[in-house]
């Protein structure tokens, strides 16, 4: 391992070969979990290990833009996984600004997601006719892109509205107040079906318009790919999410290195010292809050279009907590960490744990007998109460506990943090 690291050429070669092998394996078996994980692993290795930049771009581009879409033709679940990962990654990046950089514990982050989702859901469906005099809704799908921007603005405004009282508080008080305000948004979404029907309450809003993709299908056709709308939409959303993640990441990197980024970190590290340095605490915090919120708002609009349906059930406290978990698992304050944290949690939750229970279920259906010599167990006898699908969340909880014990700084710690640790050691 050490040898590898000292020899960049060899390292590059190993990673490139690994990426190719894993990709080919995935293309051959688009529905198996292991090659998919290996592919992602090689992508991760390529991005994190010290190899030439052009190779990183090449491997990353090839896997994200060629291998996964190609495998996705056979297994559209990969697109869904990619889209969900992307949505959560963007939100984790947004929350990373609030929690990771500025050190403000926000437990109501899903509220902004809800605001974004409802912004497009209400106007991109007949719902708006309920309270608007002009019966012109749903707006055609082209407006979706405009409403992503609107959602950004609305979410940022909500961030300011929620943040103005909340950010005057500190630490755990801030946590509980954001938690409460997050709940307030959900309860409002659940109850604003009367006296005037804004959100249709628990019934949710459906159907929501999607951006038209005839041009995209035409484009694919030119490349010799004939696809129906049903097939093309997942691919389109997948690519759209990739683009957005790219933009969000760039914005994040710029922010991180900007005056604001440094001010946020200063506040996180020592509020009093930051104030002494002339950083205006409240406005700086508020900007962090609104910035984080706006990312979430954009993804909310995308979520609404992808799901075709929005209801308050999607924006619970658990959702906020999960996004926080992504940020911290990935490594607070670290941009690749937030993306990786989102990917880990999403893939674990909707793929790995499910695959594990499907596998156990197959074993049971097949009546497989586990034979360890001293211990024999026939899976056909697995009682209903031990149904593996029931305990996915329990395993997830355990993973969280172990992760915090053995790697509390997250999967990819923030670079500043690593540098600090090194300094302390020497």
């Amino acid at each position, binding site marked *: 391992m050490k040898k590898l690291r000292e020899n960049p050429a060899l390292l590059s070669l190993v990673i490139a070969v690994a990426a190719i092998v894993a990709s*080919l*394996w995935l*293309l*051959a*078996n*688009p*529905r*198996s979990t292991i090659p998919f994980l290996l592919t992602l692993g090689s992508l991760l290795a390529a991005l994190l290990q010290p190899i030439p930049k052009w190779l990183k771009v090449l491997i990353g581009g090839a896997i994200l833009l060629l291998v996964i879409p*190609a495998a996705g*033709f*056979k*297994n*559209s*679940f990969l*697109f*869904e*996984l990619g889209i*969900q990962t992307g949505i959560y990654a963007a939100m984790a990046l947004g929350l990373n600004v609030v929690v990771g950089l500025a050190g403000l514990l926000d437990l109501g982050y899903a509220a902004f997601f809800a605001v974004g989702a409802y912004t497009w859901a209400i106007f991109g469906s007949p719902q708006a006719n309920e309270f608007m005099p002009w019966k012109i809704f749903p707006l055609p799908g082209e407006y979706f892109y405009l409403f992503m921007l609107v959602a950004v603005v609305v979410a940022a405004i909500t961030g300011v509205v929620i943040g103005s009282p909340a950010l005057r508080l500190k630490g755990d008080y801030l946590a509980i107040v954001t938690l409460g305000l997050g709940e307030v948004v959900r309860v409002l979404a*659940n*109850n604003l079906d009367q006296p005037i029907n804004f959100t249709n*309450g*628990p*019934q*949710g809003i*459906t*159907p929501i318009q999607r951006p038209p993709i005839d041009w995209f299908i035409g484009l694919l056709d030119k*490349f*010799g*790919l004939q696809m129906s709308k*049903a*097939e093309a939409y997942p691919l389109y959303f997948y690519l759209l999410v990739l683009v957005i993640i790219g933009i969000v990441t760039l914005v994040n990197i710029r922010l991180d290195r900007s005056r604001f980024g440094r001010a946020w970190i200063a506040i996180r590290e020592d509020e009093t010292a930051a104030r002494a340095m002339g950083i205006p605490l409240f406005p700086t915090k508020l900007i962090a809050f609104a910035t984080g919120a706006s990312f979430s708002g954009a993804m909310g609009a995308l979520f609404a279009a992808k*799901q*075709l*349906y929005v*209801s308050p*059930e*999607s924006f619970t406290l658990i959702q906020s907590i999960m996004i926080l978990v992504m940020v911290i698992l990935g490594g607070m304050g670290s941009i690749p960490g937030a993306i990786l944290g989102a990917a880990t949690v999403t893939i674990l*939750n*909707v*793929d790995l744990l*499910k695959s594990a*229970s*499907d596998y156990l*279920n197959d074993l049971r*259906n097949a009546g497989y007998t586990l034979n360890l010599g001293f211990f024999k167990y026939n899976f056909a006898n697995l009682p*209903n109460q031990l*149904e593996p*699908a*029931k*305990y*996915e*969340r*329990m395993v997830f909880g355990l993973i969280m506990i172990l992760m915090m014990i053995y790697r509390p700084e997250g999967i990819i710690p923030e670079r500043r943090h690593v540098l600090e640790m090194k300094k302390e050691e020497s």
Partner: protein
Amino acid sequence: MKKVFLALALAFGATALAQGNVIKIATVSPLSGEQAALGEMIKLGAQLAIEEAQPYFEKLGFKLELAPQDDQANPDVGVAVARRLVTDPEIVAVVGHLNTGVAIPSSEVYKDYQLAMVSPANTGPAVTDRCYLNVNRLVGRDDVQGPAGAEFAVKELGAKRIFVVHDKTTYGQGVAEQFKKKAEELGAQVVGFVGTEEKANFQALILQMKAKKPDFVYFGGIYHQAGVLLKQMRERGIKATFMGPDGLDSSKFVEIAGEAAKGAYYTTVAGPIEKYPKAKAMAEKFEKKFGKTPESFAIYAYDSANLVIKALKDFVAYAKRAPTRAELSMLVRQTTLDGVTGYTAFDYKGDRKKADYFVVHLKEAKYPGEVVKVISFPAPATKCEAIK
């Protein structure tokens, strides 16, 4: 380009797409989290039906299997599960979901792959009003069950001042709103219409009832809330008649409410066991196999699975192969079943053509109660602009 990929894939020996003779029916419902008790019933009901049918398919050389999935009552997870299911070629039909909020986005995915879905629990009108060819439901719609209950409450029981409570879910609020609408049409006065997500302390509602003095209380929701509410109401001396939808159709309702359950009413499409020998046989088998009585959605799931199985049997016996999804979808819509919940035939949009609603009266605090009235209601028609 697609050809290149395909060639690549073939070159690597893509044999993952099993062409074997395994046929899987999936159940999707929350198996973890707070709603797991309800979700599990869906799984168990379907499991029983599938296990009963396994010998038949074995004789024909097919292996019928259950693929239970957990949607965690979360739309994101639901859609992800749906995507997983449609990519597994062995899966031919879905029995699920529990929550309408999860069912709607998930069925958008099933629709794209023409995967047949039979819902044992989603009562929201929107599920079938989208006129998808593959989406069917066995349970009654909110806009059928609510009015049926209201008709009985006002006409038979003479309810005048009605207090309506619901649980702020798609199901509870939906059915409560329809109840309210019909009751008002029939001339009763709705003195309160309150939603609450509360599960333990209902005193705020009870105090409102004390002030409004209703003679009838309708609860739109499920037994674990209804039981606690009813118990607390009686403890605090609210004597109004209590009624609810089929969410109350469970021995747990009586167990939780205790003596307070005496005199309560509920509407359900599940036939009373003494009238339907099939239901009795099913309940006994269920209890023997899983050690508990079939509650709430178990019988609907059982019938849903049986309906799919009946369609499958017809197809497999005739064609000697597993059906494609599109074939099965078409077939499921046509299939009729004389099941535990009565006679099922789907209309053009996947609702039951006509559902018999039984009004059950718990004369003693003992489950099941006595059927006091049968109300027949056709599903309301929707204009399907274009069959998609």
